[in-house]
């Protein structure tokens, strides 16, 4: 098991989770937040408009009420007064009382300011009393401005009353002065509904409650109790055209807007409980909040899932790579994500498979090195292709060589000496074979077998084999000189033959050999056995292939074991010129 890498400083899981979560949650929060913000402001503006419209509507209704009374009074001041009692006018006055319930009494004043007629629901009617009313502010007010609305007075400290006087278009028609019971505005004010539970009320100029759906508040005529309403009006006046939040008499939070009633100089204020007015806004805010929370949770779940999907395969890949790295090339990463991860896993699996093949091959090649010339081994190693070792039939040159008198030497000499001689001998042979790019098939005691033109083919194999044999002779003869001085009576002979042979790997996975099977091997071996010291014997095929490039001497055909006919033999003349 290879050492596991250090734990990462930050986990990919955390990074991806945060990134994905932020990618989903942030836009959601920004969108939701801005939606809530703008929604709130839109709704607030809509409420503003709504309450403003309600206030103006309510003001118009109250104004209609007042103008209705004014118009009725206008009928009474259309004809000039005569000196005599005007019965018709008395009937008109009585009819006015009948028609306008809010008018409690009506007084008609002529051009001279004298009372000509007084009718009342409660008091006795009077005709031509002649009472002087020219100093009455109602009369003076109507004369200067056609219509005069007096201040609100509270009868018995409770019931709101007001004097309304109307003058005709000429002074001769006089003035009509009416006492109006303002309690009758209740019919108007109680009919006004703002939203579901919102209502309207009327304050006069000094801030006294003139009309309210709860008539008892008006009748209480308690200026201290109406303080919150005055505060409300002051707050609205401070920010004209805006609906504001404040408190009503019961100290409930309300949203209120105001409209003035011209003429009487009153204010109509409409109010709606804040909870009701903002119910839709609050509901929307709640909705948005819940959606945002749900969205955020969803984003977290989604981010977790996606991250898991991404990091899971990565961990699987990491483990797999670790296993493969540990040499378990048969390990396979199984990923079915259908995306790049799966492709990556497939790549890793392919890599592992190729690594396994490559390892097997390199093991095989290392085994081949034993008998392949280094160049060949290198070639096979480099190409990674050992198909050259596959079995085939090819024209080869087989070279055999061995030492003469080795058996007697090995019997007499010390094992160290034998091994030392053999070591030098092997070294010399290996060096020569290597130089000539031949294949050393192996040593067998003092004998060695070398193959030329297999497994790697080369040009002019016969010549190369002959030249190699010459080099072998020269190299070994040099050693022989040394050994002889030490008293070892040894010689060296070489035989080679050329011909077709079946070459290739033989053997099991554990014990693999490269072999050349055919008559030519046998012939080369026999020629070697028949060669004397310092002699190189070659067969006819090799001699023919060499031609004249190497001096040869044809010897008498020899009878060789395993061959029915005597075999033509040639000896290589070497060392000439050396």
């Amino acid at each position: 098991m290879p050492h596991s890498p250090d734990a990462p400083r930050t986990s990919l899981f955390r990074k991806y989770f945060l990134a994905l979560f932020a990618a989903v949650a942030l836009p959601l929060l920004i969108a939701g937040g801005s939606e809530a913000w703008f929604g709130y402001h839109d709704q607030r503006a809509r409420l503003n408009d709504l309450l403003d419209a309600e206030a103006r509507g309510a003001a118009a209704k109250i104004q209609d009420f007042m103008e209705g009374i004014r118009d009725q009074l206008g009928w009474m001041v259309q004809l000039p007064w005569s000196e005599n009692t005007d019965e018709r006018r008395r009937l008109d006055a009585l009819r006015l009382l009948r028609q306008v319930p809010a008018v409690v009494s009506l007084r008609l004043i002529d051009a001279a300011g004298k009372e000509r007629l007084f009718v009342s629901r409660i008091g006795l009617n009077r005709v031509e009393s002649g009472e002087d009313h020219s100093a009455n502010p109602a009369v003076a007010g109507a004369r200067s401005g056609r219509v005069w609305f007096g201040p609100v007075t509270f009868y018995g400290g409770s019931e709101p009353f007001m004097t309304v006087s109307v003058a005709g278009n000429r002074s001769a028609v006089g003035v009509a002065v009416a006492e109006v019971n303002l309690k009758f505005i209740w019919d108007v004010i109680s009919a006004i509904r703002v939203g579901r539970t919102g209502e309207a009320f009327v304050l006069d100029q000094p801030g006294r409650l003139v009309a309210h759906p709860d008539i008892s508040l008006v009748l209480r005529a308690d200026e201290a109790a109406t303080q919150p309403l005055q505060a409300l009006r002051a707050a609205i006046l401070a920010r004209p055209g805006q609906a504001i939040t404040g408190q009503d008499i019961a100290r409930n939070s309300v949203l209120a807007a105001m409209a003035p009633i011209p003429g009487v100089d009153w204010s109509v204020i409409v109010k709606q409980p804040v909870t009701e007015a903002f119910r839709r806004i609050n509901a929307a805010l709640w909705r948005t909040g819940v959606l945002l929370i749900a969205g955020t949770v969803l984003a977290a779940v989604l981010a977790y899932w996606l991250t898991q999907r991404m990091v899971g395969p990565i961990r699987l890949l990491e483990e797999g790579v670790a296993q493969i790295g540990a040499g378990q090339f048969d390990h396979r990463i199984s990923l079915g994500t259908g995306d790049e991860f799966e492709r990556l896993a497939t790549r890793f699996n392919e890599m592992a498979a190729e690594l396994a093949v490559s390892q097997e091959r390199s093991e095989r090649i290392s085994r081949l090195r034993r008998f392949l010339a280094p160049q060949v081994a290198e070639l096979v190693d480099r190409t990674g292709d050992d198909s050259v070792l596959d079995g085939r039939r090819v024209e080869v040159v087989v070279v055999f060589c061995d030492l003469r008198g080795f058996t007697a030497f090995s019997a007499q000499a010390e094992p160290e000496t034998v091994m030392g001689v053999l070591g030098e001998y092997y070294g010399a042979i290996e060096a020569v074979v290597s130089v000539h790019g031949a294949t050393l098939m192996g040593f067998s005691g003092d004998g060695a077998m070398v193959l030329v033109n297999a497994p790697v083919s080369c040009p002019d194999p016969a010549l190369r084999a002959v030249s190699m044999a010459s080099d072998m002779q020269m190299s070994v003869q040099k050693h022989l000189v040394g050994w002889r001085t030490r008293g070892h009576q040894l010689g060296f002979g070489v035989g080679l033959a050329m011909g077709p042979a079946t070459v290739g790997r033989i053997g099991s996975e554990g014990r693999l050999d490269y072999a050349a099977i055919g008559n030519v091997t046998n012939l080369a071996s026999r020629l070697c056995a028949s060669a004397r010291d310092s002699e190189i014997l070659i067969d006819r095929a090799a001699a023919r292939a060499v031609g004249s490039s190497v001096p040869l001497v044809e010897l008498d055909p020899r009878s060789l074991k395993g061959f029915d006919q005597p075999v033509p033999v040639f000896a290589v003349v070497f060392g000439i010129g050396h």
Partner: protein
Amino acid sequence: MRFMPSVCAGAAGRMRRRDFVALAGAAMAWTLPARAQQSAMPIIGYLGSESPGPYASRLRAFRDGLAEAGFVEGRNLAIEYRWAEGQYRQLPALATDLVNRQVTVIVAPGGAEVALAAKSATTTIPIVFEMGGDPIALGVVDSLSRPGGNLTGVSSLSVEVSRKRLEFMHELLPTARSFAVAVNPTSPTSSSQMKNLQAAADSLGLELHVLTASAEQEFDGMFRAVSQTQAGGLVFSSDPYFAYRSQRLAVLAAQHAVPAVTQSRDFPIAGGLMSYGGDFEQSHRHAGNYAGRIIKGEKPSDLPVQRVTKVEMFINLKAAGALRLSFPPSLLSSADGVIE
């Protein structure tokens, strides 16, 4: 819980017929289940000066007012009735009875006597009165806007407008120089009304004959006296005792062929000539509304006394025809209701 009100109503009926003092102990015993019930359903103690019959139209208006405040008798409210059957001396005892029953609120409609009887019976249980007179002058409350204490209610203008009745009579019979006035001497408003009427007679240049009646048996003699005094007609002062006996008065007026005017529209509807007075439907409705609001938790001292400002005139053309009278245009055009 639904059977409870009927059980209690039955108990109340039984108790009414017995001597109160003898049953004081029993009444105390009754308060136990009554208290237990109180938490579930509020009880109104309704103190009536007459019997349910004459009160029927008033009760209807009263229940309308309760409904405005969200209460319906038998569903979320029980009403215990105590009727004086015209025996106004019984009122204090009946009021005390209601107090002992620990009702949630006492409703005392139909005049100052009823209100004063309730007022003297308790200073804690809220009382809603209904009357035609001025509650301040009658000593029921100190102020209209801030009644204080445990009383509030509704007042109509019936008492104040009794002089208008004389004026209308004068308008109908401009040649008559004298009129008879019917007064109930036991009524707490009788003296103020007499003063009022006398002042009006003086300014109209009329002579008044005062006739008194405080019991039904005296009515006949009163009408007979009108014919004897050569008075042009009979003007009734405002008094609940008269108002609740409009039927009888209408019959007697027709019998004696006396032109008469009372405060209640019941009179011309029953065949009398004319009426001018406060709208009792409004006043009783407001009283119901106030009772409901008090049950809901409002304090009577926070509820100002309401004045019913509507004064209505009803005339009966048939009665006028029988008396060989015709209403002048001023009266015809002023009338809120004309019975033909």
